[in-house]
């Protein structure tokens, strides 16, 4: 059992899902269309539910209960990438992030269906099917707005250029990278990034959006090691506000 490596892997995925799930939920009631309001709210529910399932596996490995893990940690103990904690901004940025992130997480869970850690392999097979709806949603809107009007193309392009360095931070290597790969737990961030780039290129080639040379994009890293932007603590303070009034309350 390679417990430290497994825990680190589970924490970073669960934290990504929880934090972006919370960001998605901030669109509830504010979406530019009722349909988008519902879509981002539903994806929030999926992501937070999936993070809960991952935290439950961590609990079985001796970590605190999911609620405590989600609501009681300070920012420096979160392993999410900085990308997911950035504020929603305008809809164009939220959509670009949704596309870049969900393309990656869908591939990540696909890869994890063959993990040697059986619990995560089983859960990933389940989550893989659910995420199909997320990538479908993202791809549909990117294809439409990525070649709709000069304004939609310009706004998405600006958001894409801004998002890419953060997006590459999703693939910041784990301290246990070699162990994870060698033991068949996870095929690794490099393999994931390679598949992700291919998929992103494929979808964007059907639009007027332009990707830069990948080698010229400087990844914004640190999140996997607890080094976050100022936005994470603010998000956590808001997310845990009610829970912290009385952590022992039964809901």
């Amino acid at each position: 059992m390679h417990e430290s490596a497994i825990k680190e892997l589970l924490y970073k995925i669960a934290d990504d899902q929880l934090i972006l799930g919370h960001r998605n939920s901030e669109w509830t009631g504010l979406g530019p269309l009722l349909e988008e309001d519902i879509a981002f709210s539903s994806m929030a529910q999926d992501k937070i539910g999936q993070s809960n399932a991952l935290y439950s596996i961590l609990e079985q490995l001796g970590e605190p209960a999911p609620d405590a893990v989600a609501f009681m940690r300070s920012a420096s103990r979160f392993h999410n990438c900085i990308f997911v904690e950035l504020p929603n901004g305008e809809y164009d940025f939220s959509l670009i992030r949704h596309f870049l992130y969900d393309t990656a997480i869908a591939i990540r869970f696909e890869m994890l269906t063959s993990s040697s850690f059986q619990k995560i392999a089983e859960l990933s097979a389940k989550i893989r099917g659910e995420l199909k709806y997320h990538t479908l949603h993202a791809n549909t809107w990117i294809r439409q707005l990525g070649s709709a009007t000069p304004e939609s193309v310009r706004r998405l392009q600006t958001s894409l250029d801004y998002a890419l360095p953060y997006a590459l931070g999703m693939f910041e290597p784990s301290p246990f990278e070699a162990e994870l790969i060698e033991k068949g737990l996870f095929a690794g961030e490099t393999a994931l990034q390679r598949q992700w780039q291919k998929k992103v290129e494929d979808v964007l080639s059907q639009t007027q959006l332009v990707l830069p040379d990948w080698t010229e994009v400087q990844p914004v890293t640190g999140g996997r090691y607890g080094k976050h932007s100022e936005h994470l603590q603010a998000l956590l303070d808001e997310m845990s506000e009610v829970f912290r009034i009385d952590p022992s309350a039964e809901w």
Partner: protein
Amino acid sequence: MSEITADMIREWLKEVKDPEIPVLSLIDLGVIRDIALEGGEVTIEMTPTFVGCPALETMKEEIHKTLREKGLEKIHIDVNFRKPWTSDLISDSGRRALKSFGLAPPPPNHLFMDLDVLEYAVCPRCGNTNTELRNTFGPTLCRSIHYCNDCKEAFEQFKPL
């Protein structure tokens, strides 16, 4: 009292409905994956439709309540993903119940490779496919929203998964 069997429990669980779709029993929904009896203790293996399904806790409480009323005391519910749920597990009677409830039953899961299968859902009112997909996300995680061009009305479909 005669010996309680797994078949009897399965029959009793037909009384427990999905709180989000109250015409569908947990048996017809396909979320009960196994029922095992040992020395008066029953273990029910259950798996959620969606990982983030908020109805799961209510379903568990209802199972406990129903089986206690039948005289069972030791009830364990094991929620896991060993045999994950897919929409193909909804029984034929469940599909009929969905349709009469006004919800289009899900198309076979293997057809769901891209948007096309969602695009032309069968309208549960008129049975035609002159329909449009309005949103892959609906009022609950398991439903999408469609519009029938013949009936000129919106309807929901249970999503293939």
